[in-house]
């Protein structure tokens, strides 16, 4: 049974179509990577799946709940089985790392403080931050912030882990560590993952299946091999890093020539 199924999703901002008839299924236990360039609509799709925005039409089922039509209470119940790490980490700056991870446990469970302390320590140990619990988010490096965000996302032992651009803005080594962490979590916790990214090496390292998004449309969904063998021109362009609209060289040359002539005329 699929954990998430997106059906005929259409999203418009001020009449501009951002997502156009997207259909996607994410199965239990797999890591689905949502791959696409800037402006392809991948962040929008993610926000829709999390119920942060409502679509123009279509539906999104997360564990059987329609996120586009359900009540606030149902939405909150479904959200408790999701762990989300945002692109910027989105750690609460006024709280320490420990308190950030503990927040969900403290508020949504009736566990004793000592148990919560232990669980927080375990989650931080999983991401390798056990010694940094007392620090505030601003005292951490970019990679540590992302790992802390993953620890917070894991707090309630979610069935589905959602990661928005986990390796964006990180150096290759730290990004690689984060990929290994995701694979480790999948192996150890049997977690289902939805990872949004535009980084090819990371996508092909962690994905079970890849969904390729381009200008609001889902071009291809398939395993790594299927995506790599795809003959779709836009997919090939993305994989080969070919520019979609290359800089128009004659136009630039003509502009420069005019500029030089104007400067010459002035002096």
């Amino acid at each position, binding site marked *: 049974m699929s954990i998430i199924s997106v059906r005929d999703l259409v999203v418009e901002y001020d009449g501009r179509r951002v997502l156009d008839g997207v259909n996607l299924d994410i199965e239990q236990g797999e890591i689905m990577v949502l791959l696409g360039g800037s402006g392809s609509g991948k962040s929008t799709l993610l*926000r829709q799946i*999390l*119920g*942060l925005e409502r679509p123009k039409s279509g539906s999104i089922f997360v564990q059987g709940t329609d996120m586009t039509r359900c009540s*606030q209470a149902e939405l*909150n*119940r479904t*959200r*408790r089985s*999701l762990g*989300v790490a*945002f*692109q*910027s980490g*989105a*750690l*609460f*700056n006024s709280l320490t790392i420990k308190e950030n991870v503990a*927040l*969900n446990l*403290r*508020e*949504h469970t009736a566990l004793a403080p000592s148990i919560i302390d232990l669980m927080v320590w375990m989650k931080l140990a999983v991401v390798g931050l056990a010694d940094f619990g007392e620090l505030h988010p601003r005292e951490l490096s970019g990679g540590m912030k992302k790992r802390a965000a993953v620890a917070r996302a894991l707090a309630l032992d979610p069935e589905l882990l959602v990661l928005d651009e986990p390796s964006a803005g990180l150096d290759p080594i730290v990004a690689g560590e984060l990929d290994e962490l995701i694979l480790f979590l999948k192996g150890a916790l049997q977690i289902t993952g939805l990872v949004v990214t535009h980084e090819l090496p990371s996508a092909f390292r962690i994905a079970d299946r890849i969904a390729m998004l381009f200008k609001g449309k889902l071009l291809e969904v398939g395993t790594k091999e299927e995506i790599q063998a795809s003959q779709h021109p836009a997919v090939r362009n993305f994989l080969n890093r070919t520019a979609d609209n290359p800089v128009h060289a004659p136009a630039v040359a003509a502009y420069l020539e005019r500029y030089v002539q104007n400067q010459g005329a002035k002096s």
Partner: protein
Amino acid sequence: MASVFEITGKKTLSYAEYLGSLNIQLWATLRAMPVALPLVGNRHRWRAAIYQMLDIGVTALPMVALLAMCSGFILAMQGAAELRRFGALHYVIDLVAVGFSRELGPLITAIAVSGRSGSAFAAEIGTMRVTEEIDALKVMAFEPVEFLLAPKYLAALVAVPCLTVISNVFGILAGGVFMFFSTHLSLPLYFHYVLTSIELRDIVMGMIKSLAFATIIVQVGCLEGFRVRGGSDAVGRSATTAVVRSTFLVIVADAIFTAIFYSIGKM
């Protein structure tokens, strides 16, 4: 001509929309308020409310006291300059006592709080929007209104009337000091005259006003924060707008309340 009507219409609609959102937010806050109350509510929200009370109230104390004393002196001196010509210097006592308890105490407090805390609310919530912390709250199944707004509103409803009382005391004290130096009227006798000149009704009116002002400051400050779109420049602008709009609305509300109390008083 058409464009004049067009601009007027657009402006009117945008103000109506703003007032509408303010009212919707106020209603949502009132519904979330029980959560922030002690004993019956969530103790984490109550603790947040206490921190906010310290922040809005206690740390603003020196500033409000100083502002009130300066205004008390100004009112006494300006009044005395005119009243002396009619040999009615003792009316300065009534002027300061009634003026402060009905009008200046609540107003000065509101302006100080709007400058200190209104802008801080807008900046805090605005920053949380920019860094995706609000989205993180939502996907962690917390209601931002309940988590952020309710404790702040409860704190303001307690702290602003308290500050108003203190502002009244210091303003009236400044009048007493002026009377002591200009007419050698002793302070105990001055306070005796003050108590005969103000009625309980004056104090109650001042308190009602200060509750209304607290509502305006918190709701406008938080709404400006929630409406932040974009980056850090938008956060700065929202803090400025919060102060400008809340001060403006405080004075408008003051005029309305004074008109109502005036017409009730005549009957």
